[in-house]
């Protein structure tokens, strides 16, 4: 099916990555921060000094014990860093360069759904799945009503998955077919209108959809909302990053090799030469950035500029992200800034001269551009949210902690990333995305 998204906003900002791919070598140390996995309670199964192989278990989730989190490298556990209340902050693995694989005796001959499920759980590939609502790893025994794969990205300067998939199309098709066999539910693959007809699965369980329009038309939350909306917290859809699907396909195509590389985009204005990169998974960010000229006054963000989170250079980017953004963090205080005609102002409002100049490429910083105020409902949030949701009322119900109202207004269909543009356009500088996040956490604990 074809979908035309009307509401939203495409931001044309500097720092677009060029598509020639820089190869990042195998790092001497790899690292993994369990906090990137939402809502899990990690329990370590290794200690400092242990040797580990690719696919070897590092920790598991106490609430979902058969779901394993594995190492993507072979070597030794060099260090495990703990924060307050012994929260695991970083697991550091000294790589040995042998890329040794953990011995598994999977029988690839018989492939029934439960066998595939077992393989995915055992190899840590189960963690590639996430579910809506709550954007967390699904329970190891559950099944979704549908699986969504988005092969498009509309966030500014973000990674275009098609570039990776074209190179790995065989693995991608295989991965989709394996998942289809395991789940036996509809798999919805959503691509941008330009990429129509790039893949052929020959599988009646796979539905292909095309989305057209401004950001967030590429967000999986929008796709789920349009194709098979989530009704309540037990109405669960899964989604998965297409590169992860290709990894699963590669595993089955190669009889058990775990694919531990990934294509990413390194973008943003904090770089001289933003471009695509091929990196090993769990590579610390400073290893990646050593290939680039980075501005001193920049902040590292794992993910795109609208929905990522800041990380330090000794950590690796989230396993779910394929964009690394460097944002400029220096902001000057302009004299009578509110009087600025704004020839170059980045805005969706029509109160700056820039809004009537076509095809401007904007320079961007992390400036908040104002101070926090109470909600003044100008109606700007509604202009950039292509969902059947009333953001002003939903946000108020979250702030009031009114569970019933939140449910009726559709909190289960929401994810912070879909509301990023609401935060962007907000004049009162409200953290709309974070409020949605808080609402989801609250409702998960209280309903």
């Amino acid at each position: 099916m074809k979908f035309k998204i009307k509401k939203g906003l495409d931001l044309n900002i500097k720092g677009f990555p060029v598509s020639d791919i820089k190869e990042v070598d195998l790092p001497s140390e790899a690292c993994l921060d369990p906090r990137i996995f939402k809502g899990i309670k990690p329990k370590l199964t290794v200690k400092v000094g242990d040797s580990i192989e690719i696919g070897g278990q590092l920790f598991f989730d106490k609430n979902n014990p058969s779901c394993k989190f594995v190492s993507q490298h072979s070597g030794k556990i060099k260090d495990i860093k703990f924060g307050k209340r012994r929260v695991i902050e970083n697991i550091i693995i000294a790589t040995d360069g042998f890329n040794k694989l953990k011995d598994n005796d999977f029988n690839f001959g018989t492939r029934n759904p439960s066998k595939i499920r077992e393989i995915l759980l055992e190899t840590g590939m189960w963690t590639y799945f996430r579910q809506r609502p709550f954007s967390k790893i699904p329970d190891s025994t559950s099944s979704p009503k549908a699986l969504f794969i988005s092969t498009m990205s509309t966030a500014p300067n973000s990674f275009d998955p098609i570039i990776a998939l074209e190179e790995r199309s065989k693995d991608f098709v295989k991965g989709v077919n394996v998942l289809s066999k395991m789940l036996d539910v509809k798999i919805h693959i959503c691509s941008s209108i330009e990429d129509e007809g790039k893949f052929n699965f020959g599988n009646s369980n796979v539905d292909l959809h095309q989305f057209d329009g401004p950001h967030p038309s590429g967000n999986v939350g929008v796709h789920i909302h349009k194709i098979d909306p989530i009704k309540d917290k037990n109405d669960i859809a899964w989604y998965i990053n297409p590169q992860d699907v290709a990894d699963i396909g590669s595993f089955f195509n190669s009889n058990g090799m775990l694919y531990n590389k990934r294509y990413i985009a390194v973008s943003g204005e904090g770089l001289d030469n933003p471009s695509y990169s091929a990196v090993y998974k769990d590579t610390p960010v400073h290893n990646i950035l050593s290939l680039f000229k980075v501005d001193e006054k920049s902040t590292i963000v794992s993910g795109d500029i609208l929905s990522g989170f800041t990380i330090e250079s000794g950590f690796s980017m989230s396993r779910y992200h394929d964009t690394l953004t460097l944002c400029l963090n220096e902001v000057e205080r302009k004299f009578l800034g509110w009087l600025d005609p704004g020839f170059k102002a980045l805005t969706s409002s029509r109160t700056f001269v820039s809004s009537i100049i076509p095809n401007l490429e904007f320079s961007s910083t992390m400036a908040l551009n104002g101070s926090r105020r109470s909600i003044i409902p100008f109606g700007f949030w509604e202009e950039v949210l292509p969902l059947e949701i009333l953001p002003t009322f939903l946000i108020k119900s979250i702030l009031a902690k009114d569970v019933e109202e939140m449910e009726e207004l559709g909190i289960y269909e929401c994810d912070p990333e879909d509301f990023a543009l609401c935060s962007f356009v907000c004049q009162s500088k409200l953290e709309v995305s974070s409020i949605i996040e808080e609402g989801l956490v609250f409702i998960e604990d209280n309903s």
Partner: protein
Amino acid sequence: MNFLRNILDKAESYFSKGSKYEKFWPLFDAPDTFLFSTNKITKKAPFLRDQIDLKRSMFFVVLALIPCLCFGVYNVGLQNKISSGIPFSDAISLPLYDLLMIGLLSVVPLYIVTFTVGGICEAIFSVVRGHEINEGFLVTGMLIPLVMPASLPLWMVAASTVFGVVIGKEIFGGTGYNVFNPALLARSFVFFAYPGQISGDRVWTFDAVSGATPLLAVSSNNSSDSYMDALVNSSTGHIYTWSDMFIGFIPGSIGETSTLMVLIGASFLLLTGLINFRTVSGVMIGMILTSYLMNILGSSSNSSNLMLFLPWYYHLVMGGFAFGMIFMATEPVTSAHTNTGRWIYGMLIGVMCILIRCINPAYPEGMMLGILFANALAPLIDYYVVKSHKKKRMKRFA
């Protein structure tokens, strides 16, 4: 500007958290962020924010009010001359400078009083409540004198400003939490507390001679054959034509008389997207439909109430209709918060305004009460819109 920045940076150490005057932080923050844009950076995603903030939006609304203010000042001078016995045709050819000076002499004190009194209220609440001083007051302070007659005693302006700011806004929690439009509440305070001063024929009493507003002229006249004959200044005999009223050469509150100037401000605000076209369209539609209805009612019942015969384009240019529609009804906090709700809310204002004007013999002007009434009902409108939205959402799962 580095010099100024240095002074402010030094002063900041006295007001920042943990220092001596920490409590008075809002008093430092307001001028500081007014003079220099903030350098705060985003801590959470998205790491990119629109350049617009409340300061700029509010400043743009103030800009949109400038044409009304300028014409208002001129008209105060003009009406003053007319009420002192000079015929309209002579008064209008008097030197601009003379008229403006008279106008400024009565308008400037109103502004000084409003901003001083309102600013103090705002500052006290900010310090006590510990929140930053809100830009919303700039617009409220700008509006209050514009909806008052120029001849209003200054102490009444002060009292109504306190009422508008404190009762209208601050006791609810400040800008964003208010139920009623503070400027309108200030006006209604004068209207009900000192009724003799704000409407009727004492509006322009500079000397003994007074002039009734066109609305009052029509509504208090039961003897003329048509509303055209009634549109006469009873004391000077000057006839109010439609174009006079459109341009604004009529007695009335300072900012409301000129529909032309209001429309200039309106197009600016609509182009910049700071007022919602749905509300404005709703008010117009409600007003036009109700006027037609009243016209039909009037001609079928042969009523002596001339207001019933007034066509919509007269309603548009008389009294505070246009001003209220653009600058009061569209206030985002007190209007409905859903797009469907904004249509209904707007129409309600249009309907109520004309109903009060035509049918209620006590008040010739209905715009203020119409808007306050709709303000009170806006949450109810939203309640039903949200309810039907929830139903519509549930239908998607069927």
